[in-house]
């Protein structure tokens, strides 16, 4: 190490110590509860796997997260792809439009969706009024409503991640493909998609992890009918005082996320994404 590097390293120590003492240690303390509460041992973990209700909560969470991730990625890719092909002036406006929902509180967005999707809401009134449907559709207080709200929440993140990746692709490669006689569809699937794999992987990972622990949106738009892991944990911590089960479930969630990240990091695409695009 040069003396400059030593200095630089020293400057990171306070922040690292602070995080360790005020964040990592308390979390470990909480996770330790899963082995000590109410009795010493693995009882809580055994209960997790034996409890049919928790099984259902986990299945709901995985299903909703998976659907949310797929829909978000597909739609965000379309938006990011369009952004790359816009003239700069239009792009500035479009990017601003992407960022606006990003700045609005998650609560406000959830309630706004209720206003749009509810039985007498904006959408149903329009549909019934125009004669498209005879009875209002059930669009909220169910899984559909939860997924709509979650996709809406995730899209700005995914768009930004994908856009950063797509805008780094060298357009001369596309011209080369065209000059070799490739049709637009071929170019898209054989050039664009492979080159945007790092972006797709990192955006996908980000959304899966985010979705698994989502609390506010499912609670509001699901209104009791869609119970996901985060809400279940929060009920056990503050209401039913079953801290053992809650912390065991949190530990599992943390473990699943860690495993996902570890697996993802083995893929060259994602390593490339984390190491930056330019070599």
């Amino acid at each position, binding site marked *: 190490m040069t003396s400059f590097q030593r200095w630089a390293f020293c400057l990171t120590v306070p922040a690292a110590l602070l995080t360790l003492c005020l964040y990592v240690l308390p979390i470990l303390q909480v996770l330790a509860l899963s082995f000590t509460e109410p009795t010493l041992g693995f009882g809580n973990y055994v209960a997790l796997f034996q409890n049919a209700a928790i099984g*259902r909560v986990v299945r709901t969470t995985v299903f909703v997260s998976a659907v949310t991730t797929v829909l978000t990625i597909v739609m965000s890719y379309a938006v990011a792809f369009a952004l790359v092909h816009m003239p700069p002036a239009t792009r500035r406006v479009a990017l601003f439009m992407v960022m606006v929902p990003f700045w609005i509180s998650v609560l406000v967005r959830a309630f706004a969706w209720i206003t749009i999707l509810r039985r007498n809401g904006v959408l149903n009134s329009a549909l019934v009024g125009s004669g498209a449907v005879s009875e209002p559709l059930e669009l909220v*207080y169910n899984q559909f409503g939860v997924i709509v709200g979650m996709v809406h929440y995730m899209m700005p993140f995914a768009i930004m991640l994908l856009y950063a990746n797509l805008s780094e692709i060298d357009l001369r490669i596309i011209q080369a493909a065209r000059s070799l006689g490739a049709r637009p569809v071929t170019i898209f699937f054989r050039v664009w998609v492979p080159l945007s794999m790092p972006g797709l992987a990192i955006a996908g990972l980000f959304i899966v992890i985010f979705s698994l622990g989502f609390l506010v949106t499912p609670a509001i738009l699901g*209104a*009791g009918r*869609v119970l996901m892991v985060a809400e279940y944990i929060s009920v056990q911590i*503050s*209401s039913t*005082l*079953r801290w053992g089960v809650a912390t065991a479930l949190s530990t599992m969630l943390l473990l699943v996320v860690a495993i996902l990240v570890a697996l993802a990091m083995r893929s060259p695409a994602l390593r490339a994404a984390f190491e930056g695009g330019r070599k």
Partner: protein
Amino acid sequence: MSINRFGQDAALIALDKFRTGKIDRRGFMTAMAGLGIAVAFKPGRASAAASEIVVCNWGGAALEAFQKAYGEPFKAKSGIEVVIDGAGPATGAIRAMVDSKNVTWDATDGGMTDAVVLGKGGYVVPIDYSIVDKSLVGEGLAAEFGICNYTYSNVLAYDAKKVGATAPSSWNDFFDLEKFPGKRTMCKWIQGQLEAVLLADGVKPEEIYPLDVDRAFKKLEPLLPNLIFWDSGAQSQQLFRDGEVVMGNIWHTRANLLRKENPNYTWTWNQNLMFASAWSVPKGNPAGKKVFDFINSSMDPEGQVTLLRIMGNGPSNPKALALMTDEDKAVYSLAPENAKTGLAISAQYYADNEAELQNKFLDFISR
């Protein structure tokens, strides 16, 4: 209801009143100053000074309402300052405080069920009835680990314009989709939900406890497609306003607010489900025994009627009835004509079964 959602809700109602100018500014500012002090008592800081009582409630404008109803009268009598901390004494929070031996609250505003649960867990101390006068509260409102500070009810509220010529008058009507088509709302939190279902199914009030859960679920299952579950009082009100539901099982305080907005919304006191909220004292509270003087003083009928007028929370002291106008009585669940057909929610039953039942219920409604 280990997060006293009702207490939280009452506070929101009062805040709304302040915003719309129904409570004066000065009182509200006093409360805000109180909040400023309360912020200094967050866990991990110095505990309360010996010359004050720290009361923890559910925040919002209940800060100011509690100060008016309980704090000011106590200070006038004893010279001891009452500080209201609106952090919300969820059972989880009290447990965390006592476990870490860092107790900053003297009295907490929770449900009667919480008092039993916390008492069983050793997180709160017994109420000292040598200082607190048991006879000040109505029958069944003084327990070992909690004494009732206010009461409220779950009632059958409905939209008179939507239910047609005959209004629903019992939980039985709540299940009658032919006579009353349309969606209903019930609460996501278990207390007071299955009681209504079982009453509708013909169970006699005296045989409600222990709850026959399977029977209740069987009765409720066909209604599920027509049910929306509310989580907060404000949401229960909004569902009526938006025309999403024709009737619902909601808190009487919210039904009352709805009626004030629009007389089409009203409720029946028939088969109302009566709840008791309670003061508890966390183990190792900073003011020690002094807190019981405060609790005793909070049973004064004048202060309790003040609270009824600000937030709709009903007095626990029967003597308060003599101070009430007819208008006050109309929103008081323990007024004789309202309590006649009421069913008292069993705190003991929930203390033993709530966790299990809440999880079962959430699982059942989310299938």
